[in-house]
């Protein structure tokens, strides 16, 4: 297995091919705002690189399903200048937890559009099954050397969904020092997004209304996100390279999920307060739309190490994130690339993630107490652990193209703080655990 490199190097043109693809990978990383270890010099003719993937992401119990096509094309020009263009198309369907709690009887809700209502059977987790969207995203990036040791990248991104429009700009600069063993980088990205919720954005903490009553709906909303990333990449030995990043992210504007709401419950029984629907139909219980702060500041520290061990590659990374919503998270990611012969490999992957709940996370709202200023029952702001376990098989085709297939399982399990459980809630399964299957096929080649 250690002989793979030797075999490759004996083929004329093979090393050139490899360095081009490494440079192209570097260019794309810059587009994504990541940094690379050591720039590889490429003095070859201009070349094209193609990287395409098909993804299936499916949650169990008829929750979110995503079929996604993603493609990146890179054109390498003279003097190491690179243009990268990317396209992603997602087709999304399925149901997603609405934020309401389970009840012993059936529950009726008004749909987000306000045009209709739907009923969830007794004891079931309330899901909003109207989730259906097509997302198209494009990216463009330009990268070029800046002086002897610098690399400058600029990019733009845009994406469109039925109810969401994103536009973004980014720029980064990486500088090599110390015989190119150290790379220091800085990047900035700015996004300006607009949200046009189906039926209009509800006024936070107002109640869900009858069908056709849109009196608590606002117009379109927007949000801005500023990201700044500083990184250091260091070659330690011939077989070991490490990276450390600090990133800062500031979001301002409409940060609510317009489709999520909380159950307003009795302070003793913990059951949802009843409501008499109007003649057009409407909710049979009292539900209030969520309310998040209109600002969020996140800090992350990220460290990654890659180690080459007798032909195998160990890739380990850790991230700590903390924010002013009082969420802390830890992410540990391990990959082990294990060559099978000269042209294929297996790569097991294990990821562990854990986060604490936002300070305004609430399972439900207690009607016997004053309403808080901020509240959300979105399970993604709750206290949960997640594990991803996967296996990838990759191989080189006869004409030296890279192919890979990976299958991964993603599972989340969370808990609601005991202090938040009221009356009958203590006996119910309150947290919407998640199980998802991820299958991705990737194809890469350069010409």
């Amino acid at each position, binding site marked *: 297995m250690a002989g793979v490199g030797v075999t490759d190097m004996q083929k004329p043109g093979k090393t050139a091919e*490899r360095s081009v693809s490494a440079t192209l990978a570097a260019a794309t990383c810059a587009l994504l705002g990541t940094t690379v270890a050591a720039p590889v010099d490429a003095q070859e003719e201009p070349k094209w690189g193609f*990287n395409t993937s098909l993804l299936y992401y499916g949650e169990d119990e008829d929750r979110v399903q995503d079929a996604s096509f993603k493609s990146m094309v890179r054109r390498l020009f003279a003097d190491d200048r690179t243009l990268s263009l990317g396209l992603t198309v997602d087709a999304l369907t399925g149901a997603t937890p609405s934020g309401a709690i389970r009840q012993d009887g059936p529950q009726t809700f008004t749909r987000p559009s306000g045009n209709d209502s739907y009923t969830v059977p007794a004891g079931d987790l309330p899901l909003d099954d109207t989730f259906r969207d097509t997302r198209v995203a494009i990216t463009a990036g330009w990268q070029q050397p800046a002086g002897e040791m610098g690399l400058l990248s600029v990019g733009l991104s845009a994406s469109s969904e039925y109810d969401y429009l994103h536009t973004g700009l980014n720029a980064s600069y990486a500088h090599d020092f110390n015989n190119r063993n150290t790379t220091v980088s800085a990047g900035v990205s700015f996004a300006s997004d607009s949200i046009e919720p189906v039926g209009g954005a509800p006024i936070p903490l107002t109640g869900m209304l009858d069908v056709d009553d849109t009196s608590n709906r606002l117009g379109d909303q927007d949000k801005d996100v500023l990201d700044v990333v500083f990184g250091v990449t260091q070659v330690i030995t011939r077989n070991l*390279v490490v990276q450390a990043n600090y990133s800062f992210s500031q979001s301002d504007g409409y940060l609510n999920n317009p489709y999520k709401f909380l159950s307003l419950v009795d302070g003793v029984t913990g059951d949802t307060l009843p409501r008499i629907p109007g003649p057009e139909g409407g909710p049979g219980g009292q539900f209030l739309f969520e309310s998040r702060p209109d600002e969020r500041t996140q*800090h992350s*520290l990220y460290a990654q190490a890659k180690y080459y061990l007798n032909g195998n590659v160990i890739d380990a990374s850790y991230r700590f994130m903390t924010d002013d919503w009082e969420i802390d998270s830890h992410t540990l990611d391990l990959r082990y690339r294990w060559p099978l012969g000269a042209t294929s490999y297996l790569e097991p992957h294990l990821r562990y993630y854990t986060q604490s709940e936002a300070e305004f996370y609430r399972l439900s709202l207690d009607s016997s107490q004053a309403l808080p200023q901020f509240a959300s029952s979105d399970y993604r702001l709750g206290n949960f652990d997640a594990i991803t376990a996967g296996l990838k098989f990759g191989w080189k085709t006869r004409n030296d193209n890279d192919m890979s297939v990976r299958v991964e399982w993603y599972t989340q399990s969370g808990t609601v703080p005991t202090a938040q459980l009221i009356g009958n809630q203590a006996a119910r399964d309150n947290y919407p655990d998640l199980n998802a299957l991820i299958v991705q096929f990737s194809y890469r080649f350069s010409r």
Partner: protein
Amino acid sequence: MRNKIAVISLMLVCAGCSSMGVQPWEREVLAREEMQLTVDPVEAATDDHIYFSKEASSGGRGFGGGGCGCN
């Protein structure tokens, strides 16, 4: 305070860097495609997007991702 700790850590890391590393002719392994920090950018972007949609944290490796109504 957190910012200061981050800046000081970065400076310490950099100060230690000058004595580490390899000579240009010792880069055979480091130049290999599988030793790049991000081997498959499309796969990395896919993962960032999935976890951005399902968890309260994003980014770290690069920009925070997003640009979608999935959160």
